[in-house]
């Protein structure tokens, strides 16, 4: 089977190390006056997004452009899917057109692995349902390592992941990667927004943000997926906000140097206050910035001449 990036659990420690190292190389590239390298000239990267996305798709497309790859954009609204084409036929068509790699997002958990089993080209999972979003976890790790100057590790950090964990692919990828890199993770949310059985997760669980905050180094706030609330998962958004929104008063209970993260898009006033999102403790902008470098790294890792060997980069 060809190599792809679908789940953090597929990555070996060596893979993770390579991707982190590559990401740093591209962080440097992105500080150059002309942040573009010819590493993937002649390659074609297709973005296949069945769900709406702004930052992830733009981030991947910019990453591909900066590696000199050609970019094909697929969006659901203008596609044959609306004419009844199956997922398999859509994916195989994009491969046949000549894509060398597909960046895919889909609302169904497991969909990217399924498409990967049908195709002979690498895929990058840009979010499959509530399953995984591995490039988000990688960019979060790079952001934290940079912030805490902790090399390639996150040892000793206590990270609270707060909010709608049940529907969050970001949480599923981050829990795996952050704990493998040495951090301890506490999931915080109301029981209706936590997965049913967390016995296989290397985490602690709490229903009280106020209790967890004083020991946190990192407060990772998840987006509230308000479209889910019709199922009575919460009585109202403000009922959620009352206990779980990160506002200035709450943040003051955390460690002084605690940092705040969010995968975006943020809903100001619901899960996070504008004051916190814009505070110096917020790494939200930094996450987005690192996203481009990390996505350049993953594209290069899968498509580059040396399949990830650093010395072959230039």
């Amino acid at each position, binding site marked *: 089977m060809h190599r792809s990036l679908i789940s953090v659990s597929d990555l070996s420690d060596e893979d993770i190390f390579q991707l982190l190292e590559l990401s740093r190389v591209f962080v440097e590239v992105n500080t150059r006056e002309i942040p573009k390298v010819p590493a993937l000239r002649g390659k074609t990267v297709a973005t296949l997004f069945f769900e709406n996305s702004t930052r992830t798709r733009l981030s991947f497309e910019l990453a591909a452009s900066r590696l000199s790859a050609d970019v094909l954009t697929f969006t659901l609204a203008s596609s044959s899917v609306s004419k009844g084409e*199956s*997922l398999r036929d859509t994916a195989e068509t994009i491969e046949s057109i000549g894509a060398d790699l597909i960046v895919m997002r889909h609302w*169904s*958990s497991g969909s990217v*692995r399924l498409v990967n089993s049908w195709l002979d080209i690498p895929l990058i999972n840009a979010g499959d349902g509530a399953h995984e979003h591995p490039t988000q976890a990688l960019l979060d790790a790079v952001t934290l390592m940079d912030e805490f100057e902790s090399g390639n590790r996150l040892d000793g950090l206590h990270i609270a992941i707060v909010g709608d964990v049940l529907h969050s692919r970001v949480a599923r990828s981050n829990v795996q990667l952050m704990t493998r890199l040495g951090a301890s993770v506490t999931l915080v949310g109301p029981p209706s927004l936590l997965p*049913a*059985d967390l016995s*296989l997760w290397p985490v602690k669980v709490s229903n009280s943000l106020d209790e967890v905050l004083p020991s946190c180094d990192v407060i990772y706030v998840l987006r509230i997926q308000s479209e889910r609330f019709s*199922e009575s998962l919460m009585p109202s958004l403000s009922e959620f906000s009352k206990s779980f929104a990160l506002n200035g008063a709450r943040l003051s209970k955390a460690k002084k140097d605690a940092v705040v993260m969010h995968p975006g898009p943020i809903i100001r006033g619901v899960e996070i206050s504008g004051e916190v999102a814009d505070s110096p403790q917020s790494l939200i902008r930094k996450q987005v910035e690192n996203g481009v470098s990390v996505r350049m790294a993953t594209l290069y890792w899968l498509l580059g001449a040396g399949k990830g060997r650093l010395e072959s980069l230039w």
Partner: protein
Amino acid sequence: MVKKGLNYVIRGGTLVDAIGVRRADILVEDGLIRASEREVKPPKGYQEIDARGLVVSPGFVDLHTHLREPGNEGSETMFTGSLAGISGGYTALVAMPNTTPTIDSPEAVRYVQQIAKDAPLDIYFAGAITKGRLGESLTEMSKMADLGVKLFTDDGSGVQDVQLMRRALEFAKGIGVTLAQHCEDLRLTNGGSINEGAISSILGVAGIPNAAEDVMVARDLELVRLVGARLHFLHISTAHSAEMVKAAKAEGLPVTAEVTPHHLVLSDSKLMGFNPVFKVNPPLRSDTDRLGLWRAFQGGVFDAVATDHAPHHKELKDTTIDQAAFGLIGLQASFGAVLGELHRQLDLPQEDGSFSSGLSDEQLVHLVSFFTWKPARIAQIDDIHGCQLVAGKPANITIFDPTARWRLAEADLLSKSQNSPYFDTDLVGKILYTIVNGELKLKEGELCL
């Protein structure tokens, strides 16, 4: 139906039926068992089936088969489903009514019975409890009962409306038929695809909690207590539901229950790769539940192993886990899967050993009963299938090698669909002969129609 001129002897086999275990020959003449004795001396010219080292049992009865005809012949037909059944040792199948159209009227029953006449084994039909299986109004059960329908179910879903279920039980009681419930509260299922638990939580796939089944089992037990009608529980998948059935039986309530081979053999860890073949309803549960079902199975809580054979053509399965159809096929490998698991549970030696490969006579009778006379009784066909192997009974007989170890390959499938979950499972017990009303349909493991 008695077939003239089909005369032969089954020589040297070990008979296993409701009487027990014994060595005897069987003389078959004109579709009936003429004699079953220590040594039968047949008239000259009779063929012989050499059954030495083999088990001779009543033909298998599946209480729960989806044959997809009419309406979904791309996935299965009565004929192709019958071939899979014969290969799996079945002489009788009870077809579920969730076809298109639904089998919910005397006209529909007549129509499917007409098609089934040409099938190479006996197909019986369950009728729907509610029209169109919509859960809104009762079907004309007594008219269908007059045509021979003994079992009624909305399988595919349960009757959600508790008042309607009460009335259905009362009506069924009055005409002497049995209702069979697919226990699932759809509000608790809430669009889930796999078992809700540790695996669904990791995968981020919407889950179906045990409680979706348990609450309806509990509800229906109260209705049985209220009405006093017979009720059969289809495909019990949770250990707690099995416990409730056990307690109800101890109390004397007129309930029966079936378990599927896949819930006994497979658990939701099979879903870790998102393989839609393992998406089935009720879902494969946790290993804790699976082992609870085993204890119930070995403790005699269940009355039948039923396949819930649910064929789906490739396109219905070759998609994402939330979109893929529920269901898997089971007729060909059901016995091998259960006996294979029994070997693992009893920790029997893995090489071929003595005749019964380590099973005691009691264990052998216990195992065979779930495939034969017990389901035949529930289907009320025990005058034709699952009978004792004695003179005068219809020759519906299955002969298997209890020690043979094998694997099912996709190329061996006789069903029109390929959604078997057993390609990686060690199977024990190979069906070699299937005899339907005296006619040899499977010979040395090969179809002979």
